[in-house]
């Protein structure tokens, strides 16, 4: 399965969910096919997408938060999976695209190309609903289940390692933040 293909399936399933993306490929491809005010693209802080997603999920209990992450990013912040499992927000879904590589820097292998198993790690962290899928039909079913889930869900989607699709993100970080805050009606108190 190609990641862009999976993202198109996901885009067809979303309504007003809040989406936090990791950096690099997943952010660019999601911005390319599904740019929307309720997207927040992390641009540099690798590994923190799931943490930001947890904070959002705790702050917005009436809305569903989806984190689009990658294997390299998740491997940088494995403790976050444990924190998320213990907080257990019922409105948080982690979708982790595992291409077993650091694709944006030239496809160096990540630990999941070796012995690491992100689904087992998620289960071990205590996340209750974990699915590992590798084809579009199963991905679609797993996403539907995650979106309907009343607990924290994780979908590990095995995807091909390939160069990033789509153009660079052009929205500035400042504009991205304010567009996001306006979309959900938040005033952080700043100027």
């Amino acid at each position, binding site marked *: 399965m190609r990641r862009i293909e999976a993202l198109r399936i996901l885009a067809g399933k979303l309504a007003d969910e809040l989406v936090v993306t990791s950096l690099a490929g997943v952010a660019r491809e999601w911005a390319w096919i599904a740019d929307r005010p309720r997207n927040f693209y992390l641009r540099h802080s690798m590994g923190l997408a799931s943490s930001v997603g947890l904070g*959002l999920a705790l*702050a917005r209990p009436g809305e569903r938060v989806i984190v689009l992450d990658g294997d390299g990013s998740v491997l940088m912040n494995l*403790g976050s999976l444990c924190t998320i499992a*213990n907080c257990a927000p019922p409105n948080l879904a982690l979708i982790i695209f595992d291409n077993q590589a650091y694709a944006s820097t030239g496809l160096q292998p990540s630990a999941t190309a070796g012995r690491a198993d992100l689904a087992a790690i998620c289960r071990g*962290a*205590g996340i209750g609903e974990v699915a590992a899928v590798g084809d579009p039909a199963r991905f679609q079913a797993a996403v539907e289940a995650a979106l309907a889930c009343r607990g924290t869900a994780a979908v590990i989607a095995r995807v091909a390692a390939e160069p990033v699709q789509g153009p660079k993100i052009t929205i500035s970080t400042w504009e991205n933040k304010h567009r996001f805050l306006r979309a*959900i009606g938040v005033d952080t108190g700043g100027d």
Partner: protein
Amino acid sequence: MSGGSPSAPVPGSAPGPAPAPAPGPAGRPLPWADAILDGLKRAGIDLIVTVPDMKIVSLIRAVAADGSMELVRAAREDEAVGIAAGAVLGGRRAAVLIQNAGLLASVNALACLDGLFGIPLLLLVSYRGDMGERERSHRPVGKATEPVLKALGLPYFVLRKVEDASDAVVDAAVVAGSGDTAAALLLSNALFRNA
């Protein structure tokens, strides 16, 4: 989580022989912790993300016992910054309660998440290695703490007196909000000693 328990040691807590500040009589928070809790309430803080340190145990307990703020226990301090930043984006008023070693571990999160997007955040940081530190092992982090905050361009205040505590929390929250920035209060040994 199999084999885990809420009381298990968390990475980032300080090892070593230094005595933890004792909780007050009958579990009451120490006066400095009470004063900071008062400031947090006046500042409207409603969510605290923490990785424990011996020096701030009394404050963590005070927040937990008070019950008016949501308390999230993170595994690592840059993760705590990420959680708090996400909560602020969702409309909460969040503070991070950590040791200064964890502040140094959070530099990228502070620069490239909090700083890049301009997210107001209150950092309450135990200032290990500052004046009065008895443990040699904390000195390297102590020496680097203020230079790193300056390099990040973050407003900060070294809190040494209990009578300053409540207002300092409010002032730091105000500058964080008006400046779309993280702002730090360094909780120094004198504060704990004078408690």
